[in-house]
Every structure is written in structure tokens, then in C-alpha cells.
């Protein structure tokens, strides 16, 4: 759903970033408004995951040029946790396992930290338990996931559900979901994308980073951007994703977005 008068959430201009001294992002421009769904597609190595992590504040990604403002604030002046508290969320392609910390304790700590930073009420363990169980229904997750260690021994699909559960709890203004569809079978994909769809409102936005068009059958994007060589080389509507599915990425190579 796009509205020309909608509030700009994220504005990226001329973003360049290095990883271990190698330039991966070579000038990215992107504007995301409230209520929009964007898809960033592209072949492996095109820089789409790097873009996602640079926005979220991963320490290994060094921004060398350009700006990014999130609701008017320069996010490169903010630590990763400040970005999260401000409402920027990254769904990880490979969520990390933390044996020894229960999922319930982790989720509550994250929830209360973000709530506290936003001046909202924190929940005690009993209150939180009710709250999180309600959110878990959205993702058809069994309550036993609360007692297990964070992502420890979770299947690929379970980890991704747990990521979207965190999104549901932290209520971000902008969620960047990095390859959330990878490793999901068709049922899990339906559940996870159903969860994301129900979290979408006219006040928030989602950027889907994905290699395949498949996810976009479930979460319908307003814009599709194609990345190649560290730049967005083409932007279109949903039909662009369909065309990519049919023709692959090769026909776009060498083209530069107007």
C-alpha cells in the first residue's frame, strides 16, 4: 500500500560500505515510507545482505560514504542497540544460537529493554508469559519454545519463526528481513509470511531481502529493487519480480538504474 503523503521512515543516499577493507556497497539510494513493502532482490554476492546488516549496525560493516536517516535521525550516529530501540529491526538470515539462555528470558529481556527505552511499561515474567503466548499463536509456535535455549537445536524454520516472533514483540517501525524465506518449506513459508502480513500496518514498513520470488507470492511488495555489484540497478513493481523469476538475473547485468 503506497501513499504519496505517507511519512518517510528510511532515506538512504549514496551509501558506500566496506567489509574487511573491500568495498561491497557502491552507492545505494532508497526511500521507504510508512505502509510500504519493499523487496530487494539480486544474485548472491550482489550486496543485499551487506546492505541489511549495515543498516542494522553490524560492526564489521564500515560505512565509508553516504547517509541514512531513520525517522529523521542519522542512524550512523547510533549504536546497533539504539537503532533497535528506535524501531529498526533486522530479521537474521542465520539466527544465532545461545545455549544456556532460555528463549523466554531472552525475549522478555529484549522486550523490556526496548519498552523501557520507549518509555513504555515493562512486563514481569508472568505478564510477559501471557503476552508472548498470544504472539506465538500468530506463528503457530508451540509454547515449549519458551523453555528451550535461544535457537539452540531449532530447525531452520523454527529459527525463522522465532525471528518473526521477536519482530512481533519489538513492534518495529521498519523491519528488514534478511532471507527470511531461506530454508523454509512451503508450510513454514505460509505461516511465517502470514505472521509478517498481520504485523503490517499503515504506520510501519518492511524491507524483504530475498533471492527468490517465491516469498513475494505471500508478502506482496509495492516495490522491487534489483541489486547487482553493490548498487540498485533496477526498481519496479511486483511484476519485476515475476519477470526475474522467468528470466533470471543475467538480462539485467550491466544495466544501471535511471
Amino acid at each position: 500500500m503506497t501513499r504519496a503523503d505517507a511519512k518517510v521512515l528510511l532515506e538512504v543516499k549514496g551509501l558506500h560500505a566496506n567489509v574487511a577493507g573491500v568495498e561491497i556497497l557502491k552507492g545505494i539510494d532508497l526511500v521507504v515510507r510508512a505502509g510500504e513493502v519493499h523487496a530487494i532482490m539480486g544474485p548472491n554476492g550482489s550486496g543485499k545482505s551487506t546492505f541489511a546488516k549495515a543498516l542494522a549496525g553490524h560492526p564489521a560493516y564500515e560505512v565509508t560514504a553516504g547517509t541514512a536517516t531513520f525517522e529523521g535521525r542519522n542512524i550512523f550516529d547510533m549504536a546497533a542497540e539504539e537503532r533497535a530501540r528506535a524501531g529498526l529491526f533486522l530479521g537474521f538470515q542465520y539466527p544465532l544460537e545461545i545455549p544456556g539462555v532460555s528463549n523466554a528470558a531472552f525475549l522478555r529481556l529484549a522486550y523490556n529493554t526496548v519498552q523501557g527505552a520507549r518509555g513504555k511499561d515493562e512486563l514481569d515474567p508472568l505478564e510477559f508469559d501471557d503476552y508472548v503466548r498470544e504472539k506465538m499463536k500468530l506463528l503457530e509456535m508451540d509454547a515449549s519454545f519458551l523453555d528451550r535455549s535461544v535457537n539452540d537445536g531449532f530447525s531452520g524454520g523454527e529459527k525463522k519463526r522465532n525471528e518473526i516472533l521477536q519482530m512481533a514483540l519489538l513492534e518495529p517501525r521498519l523491519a528488514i528481513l534478511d532471507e527470511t524465506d531461506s530454508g523454509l518449506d512451503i508450510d513454514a513459508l505460509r505461516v511465517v509470511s502470514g505472521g509478517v502480513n498481520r504485523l503490517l500496518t499503515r504506520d510501519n514498513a518492511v524491507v524483504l531481502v530475498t533471492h527468490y520470488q517465491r516469498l513475494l507470492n505471500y508478502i506482496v511488495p509495492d516495490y522491487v529493487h534489483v541489486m547487482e555489484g553493490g548498487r540498485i540497478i533496477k526498481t519496479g513493481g511486483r511484476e519485476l519480480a515475476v519477470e526475474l523469476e522467468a528470466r533470471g538475473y543475467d538480462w539485467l547485468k550491466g544495466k544501471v538504474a535511471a
Partner: protein
Amino acid sequence: MSTVVGATHPYIASLLNGCESGHDQLSWLGERRAAALERANALAVPTTRDEEWRFTDITPLTRVPFQPAVAVPHPGADDVAKFIIPEAGVRLTFVDGMFAPELSANAGLPYGVVVTSLAAGLATHGSVIERHLARHARFEQDVFAALNTARLRDGALVWVAKNQQCPTPVQLLFLSTQKAVAAYPRCLVVAEAGAELTLVEEYASLVDNAYFTDAVTEVAIGDGAQVRHVRLQREARDAFHIATCAVALAKDANYASHAITLGARISRHDLSVRQGGEGAEARLDGLTLIGGRQLADTHTLLDHGRPNGRSRQLHKCIVGGAAHAVFSGKIAVAPGAQLTDSAQESRNLLLSNKAHVDTKPQLEIFADDVKCAHGATVGQLEAEHLFYLQSRGLSEQRARNLLTYAFGAEVIDGIPVPSLVEQLEETVLAETQSAE
């Protein structure tokens, strides 16, 4: 015939000052103490030139002229309350090495379970004590075990009769209250064939000062018997703690150790597990969490003497500040101890640039059909994990603390006493948050 023998090593001599070997009414006990006194006199304080002590310099210990503990008013029940484990139906408390009956509790043990002071036990269970006391913890080459044995007056006796189960954990609590004294705690634990026991052995302090604990524990586990042994060392930060624990396993015996090291300026824990019967099984879990200028040394020996033995060992160290942790784990497989299945893992987390760990696996295998795996890692918290937590709103420090806590939780969660798990989780969390 009370004698004071002039020791060759002046520091040992000072510790032996006043040690008499003549008052025993039981000749076997007198003989063992006399033999220990002789060895204590003959042995020197180990230095870093000794292979078994090369990482651990105990010179600071020898600079303090520790005196034997004297009888002082005992702490009140309120002071001791925080150390009490609610699950434990029976508790023996020792103050500066001496039995404190008024701080002990016995909620009614079933027939076939005895938890009492060694002195009292001699009257009723003399033959059990004679069979095991000073028979497992070898003092011939170990000056601190020899000192303890020479100084042996009292201690704890836990005995579980054949095929009996001790229904609740037994807590042995050793508290220090005096400055500059040396205490010599002693425990004898015997589980006869088919018996089951959970034991919590704890060393703690009511005061923050320098004292010396020289402890010896012996655990004998009969055929098919099972002992779960939690050892908690949280001495004062300025204290010295040197302890030997010797475990003897008979056929199909099962032993699980959960050894937690938190306290003391310098500490040393020697744990030896000797498998004297076929099919015995041992699990050794250890966690050392130290900071500041602490030094904590754990030496373990798993001696597979018979076929079909199985052992699993996980030792973890979390080292902050300018602290120094040592782990030396020896696995020995005797000739003929075929089909031994042994795995050892040493994992270490350094929290600062000045933190230091020495980890040394040693395998001595003299049988050819065995499985012996070992591995060691030393690392810092991983940036990817920190970023994951920060991306969920946690500050970097909070993320570090949570991951540090998680690293220790793997060992703590295995402790078979829920209240202790909870207490230790809080301790570790508080310890890791002190920098926050």
C-alpha cells in the same frame, strides 16, 4: 610420646607447629597420622619447578604464618542461613575446620544412612572408617594431603549402606571465620554397593580476610553405587584454598562431579578418580569463574584401570580482570583397560586482555582398543553473537554479560540441586554484571 618433629621445610614446620601424633586410642589411626606427619616433614612446598605446579606459584601462601584455628564463639544461625540448601535434609557445619553441631541439622535419616562427625563415627562405624580413611587420598607425594592427614582430628562422615538411597542431598558446609588461621577440613564419603547419594560440599567464609583451607575429601563408591557430588568453593577473595579429592570407583559404579570454583586469591583443586572395577562411569563437570587477581588451578586425573570404563569431562573457565585459570586434565588408560570410552573438553572464555588461562590435556593410553577424545578452546565472546543481542536492543555490556552467563550456565544447569542452580545462576549473573 607427644612429639614435634623438625621439618626440613621451614614453612611446613610452621604449619606443623604443635602437631602431635601420640594421643590416638586407635592404633591404625595413629599409624596413618604418624606416616602422614613423616611425609609432611619430608616434603617441600611445591614450586613452579615442579611439573604439577608449573603454572601455579603459591609463594604468596608461604608469606603468611598461618596458625591453627582456636575455638572461638561460633557464628549465629542467622549468619549461616544464607548457606543452607533447603533440599538438604541433613547438614553438617564446620567452623574453621571444627564440627559445629548447633549449626548442623538432621531431619531424620532413614535406616542405613549415616551423616555424622568422623570423631563420633569412629565409635559406631570404626571398621568402615578404617577401611577407607587416608586410603584413597594419597599423601606420600602430596605435602598438603600429608599436612591435612597429620592434622586430622575430626571431619565429616557420610555412609550409605548397601542398596540404600539417601532421599535428600547431604550438605557439608565448611565456614571460615578467623583471620590468618589454617583449617584442615576432612570428608569421608562411602556409598556401599548399590547405594545412591547426592552430596554438596561447600567452602565459604563469613569474613573477608586471608586464611588457609587445606582440605581432603575421599569418596568410595561400591559396586553399582551412584554418587552425585557438587563441590562449591566460594572462599573469601584473599583466602588460600588447596584441596584434594580422591574418588575410588568399584565395578559399575557411577560418579558425577560438579565442581564450581568462585573464590580464593589462590586455589588449587586436585580431583582424582580411580576406576578399580569394570564398567565404571564418571562425569566430571567443572566451572571456574574468577576475576581480579585470582588464580584458580584445577588438576584432574581420570584413571581408567579396568575395561569398559566410560568418562565424560567438561571443564569451563571464565576469566576476567588479570586473573589466571589453570586446567590440567589427565586421562590414563591402563594396559588391559580395553573398550574405555573417554571424552574430555576444556573450554575457556577470556573476558579481558590481561586474563590468562593455561589448559593442558594429558593422555596416557596403554590399551589399544579405546576411544579417547579431547579438545580445548580458548576464546572471547563472538562479535556475531554480540551483534545479534544488540540488534534486539541490549547494550553491548548487557549482551556481553548475558553471553558470559550463558557460557557458565551449561555447567551450572547440570547440578542436581535446583536451589543451588538458581543461586549460582544469580551469582554468575551478578558477577558478570559487576562491570555494568
